[in-house]
């Protein structure tokens, strides 16, 4: 006498949908883990006293732009272009901001402590360290 399968063990439409959902979620997880993260277009964030003063999406610039920034009693000239930012000159006493040179990568910053000003690049390709110390 042939053995009959229990109705409860027979796959139904719900089982198929659930299995498909598991497969799709697993595929999505794999993609999230393996695809490089992209955090949007490269953006220069100009902060004074730690507070965002201006955000400039560098990809929207059609030509290099020079900004004159007055902060903390000092005057600084910042050059922005599609690929990055550079402090051209400053009348601050330390000149650390000018010596930083050109920044081109998300996470990099130009800082002028006397003026309490920073220019940080956000977004773009994350191809460098998470943090740089020193």
């Amino acid at each position, binding site marked *: 006498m042939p053995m009959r399968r229990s109705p409860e063990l027979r796959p139904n439409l719900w089982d198929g949908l659930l299995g498909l959902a598991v497969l799709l979620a697993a595929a999505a997880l794999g993609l999230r883990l393996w695809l490089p993260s992209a955090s949007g277009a490269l953006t220069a964030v100009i902060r004074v006293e730690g507070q965002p003063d201006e955000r400039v999406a560098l990809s929207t610039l059609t030509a290099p732009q020079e900004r004159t920034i007055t902060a903390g009693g000092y005057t600084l000239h910042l050059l922005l272009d599609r690929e990055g930012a550079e402090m051209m000159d400053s009348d601050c006493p330390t000149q650390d901001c000018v010596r930083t*040179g050109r920044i081109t990568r998300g996470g990099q910053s130009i800082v002028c402590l006397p003026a309490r000003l920073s220019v940080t690049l956000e977004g773009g390709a994350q191809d460098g360290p998470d943090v740089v110390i020193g």
Partner: protein
Amino acid sequence: MKKKLLCFPLLLILALLSACGDEPERVQIIAMDTVMTFQTYGKAAEDALVDASAEVRRLDALLSRTDPESAVSRVNSAGGAPVEAGAELSELLETAAEYSRMSGGAFDITLAPVSSAWGFTTDSYRVPSQAELDALLAHVGMEHVHVSGDTVTLDGGTQIDLGAIAKGYAADRVLDLYREAGLERGWAALGGNVAALGCRPDGEPWEIGIQDPNRPDDGNAYAGLLYLEDACAVTSGSYQRYFEQDGRRYHHILDPATGAPADSGLLSVTVVADAEAGSGAMCDALSTALFVMGEEKALDFRRESGLDFELVLVTEDGRVVATAGLEGRFAPAEGSGYAYETVS
């Protein structure tokens, strides 16, 4: 039963997707005379960052030497009278005294008047005479700092500056706040200090670049790369603050024995330790002390002190010396030009 078995992996994967996919929350502040960046992830990230910023500003107000209202300023300006400094400052002074003792005085928070004489506090740089330095050095040393309960008394002429330990202490507090908020990952960068919680969202360790001290103005130039989870790392280097006069460079890390910039043959010292209670302050204090000591004494100190930490030293003669405990967590920077050595 079968549906429950299928639902479990589905829920697990969805939870993992949620955890992996969260975008970082980041805040940047200026405090303790440096730029600090805090980054973390998760639902509680935003509140945690607000709390972290507030905590660092509180510590800055407490420990600043230049804020006349701070507890440190009250102690410095008391003219030798006892000051009710509070439990937190008193405990931090005890910690500083311990690292000073362990390092044989290479770490010393009482160098403040000497640092001022060089102009490093005000950016009005000058080269003081040796006679001037000798007079100031008479008041340098932790034996001139007296802590009794919450009361602090300095001998006449002695002043304190916690700049070589305060950022590490603040890093410890920020990690505490991350943990209290239930966060699993994030980091806090405070000048040359970094404190890392957990790992990156992709499961990999945080990648920490050590700035190449020979190319301090090139943000893409590294002496090496650290790969850290739940760890602190602090770099001190002679390139971070300096001035030049008559063709000679004078940097800000002063040798308590001479009052002059430490001439130890090192360009930078990076101290790495697991993120445990107080390890940020330890890394901060030791990075300064070991820079003053130089390569040989620093490595001897690491072996003999009983403290649990690792080192990356960049020497003036073009070597990068990493301790063996960093195996798998340190990688040379390609094209840096340094000769890399591993020591026990």
